[in-house]
């Protein structure tokens, strides 16, 4: 007996079980655990033969099925009351019924008039504008920050010659540089941090310096719209004298 099964079509073990139940024209509530376990294990075997990585969830379900099967083979111990023995299939049956509900719900969800597929709205994107005041600025998430850094690195000219650099850039120097720039202007563009055509090393050091400043809560990063340009703003008043120069040893960079 062989089962022609496209393994990748199953969302998980519950989905596979529902498929088997349907194929065998069984009632979920009257789950024939012996037959289903047998067929389920056969499919798992096939998955292995196809060198597919059988997800742990499928193996766990196999164990659960075998456990239930073994329980049904054992004589049922009488309760003190002598009634209502627990059906070992009960929990699995409930999970299958519940899963089936959401499976159907997912199918009907797809029938809804989807925006962008069945129905459309008018969209007009404002051209990117420099932020005026604080109004409407959102704080920048980690994804956006990493993406901006990545973009900056890829826009660098590739260095074709390998040369051992003797010049040492210091994160501390960059921090103090950024702080002094921010003391004269309240905010600056993220890309301005790296001014001109910096080397890869300068970019990395500047980025580290900026992260340090965020960590010290001296600056904050904002953007006017998601995927919009990122702005660096002073989080405290930097024009006063109370911000002392950052000392090298506080940071642990060399």
């Amino acid at each position, binding site marked *: 007996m062989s089962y022609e099964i496209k393994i990748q079509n199953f969302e998980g*073990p519950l*989905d596979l079980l529902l498929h088997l139940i349907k194929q065998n024209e069984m009632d979920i509530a009257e789950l024939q655990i012996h037959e289903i376990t047998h067929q389920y294990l056969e499919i798992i075997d096939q998955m292995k033969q196809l060198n597919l990585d059988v997800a742990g969830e499928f193996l766990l379900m196999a164990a659960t099925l075998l456990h239930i099967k073994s329980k049904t083979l054992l004589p049922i111990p009488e309760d003190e009351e002598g009634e209502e023995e627990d059906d070992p299939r009960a929990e699995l049956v409930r999970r299958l*019924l519940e899963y089936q*509900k959401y499976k159907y*719900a997912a199918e009907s*969800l797809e029938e809804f008039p*989807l925006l*962008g597929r069945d129905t459309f709205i008018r*969209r007009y994107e404002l051209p990117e504008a420099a932020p005026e005041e604080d109004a409407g600025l959102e704080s920048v998430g980690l994804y956006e920050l990493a993406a901006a850094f990545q973009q900056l690195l890829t826009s660098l000219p590739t260095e074709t010659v390998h040369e051992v650099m003797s010049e040492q850039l210091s994160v501390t120097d960059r921090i103090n540089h950024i702080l002094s720039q921010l003391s004269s202007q309240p905010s600056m563009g993220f890309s301005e941090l790296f001014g001109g055509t910096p080397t890869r090393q300068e970019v990395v050091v500047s980025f580290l310096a900026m992260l340090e400043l965020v960590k010290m809560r001296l600056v904050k990063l904002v953007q006017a719209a998601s995927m919009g340009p990122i702005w660096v703003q002073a989080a405290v008043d930097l024009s006063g004298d109370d911000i002392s120069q950052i000392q090298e040893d506080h940071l642990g960079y060399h």
Partner: protein
Amino acid sequence: MDTIKLKSVIESLLLANGEPLGIKRIAEMLELPNADVRQAVKDLMEDYELRQGGIRIVEIANGFQLRTPVENGAFVKMLNASKPFKFSRAALETLSIIAYRQPITRSDVEYLRGVDSGGVLKTLLEKHLVRILGKKDVPGRPIIYGTSPQFLELFGLKDLSQLPPLKEVGALEEETPLPLPEKQPMTELSPSKG
């Protein structure tokens, strides 16, 4: 402002806003009672229905929005044919579980689906269809998730009560929702990571 003018203004607001616009917001802007605005929006909706044109007013996420009717979808789609809209089954399943059972933790979603759902959940979060509602007050303080207003907008729903009732198929009796294993974490049920 007479009724004709009010309807005209609201129509302009809906066109210019793009996103669903609520009665309350319009009423505040125009400094008019909610009831007047609601009546004007209702009349406007009827006008659009009667005209049977290429634009409808639809109630979405507790607001109103100008949309193209579904029967014209195939034509409008030609404008941006490069972006076919498709959900994976895993995404739809996860989304429907969250929609019906919110607020819900990731481990509860995984218990119901029987598979790891971290990747799907991350995608749904990135697409802003699902949002973090907070943390559950149980040991470990797991994050609880729910659907976002963008979810309602995407599926054209006024609110969550418009979701179709869950179909009970093959159930022997009226069942209460499956109680999720709250006290014991998923250690017994979820597969080991290794």
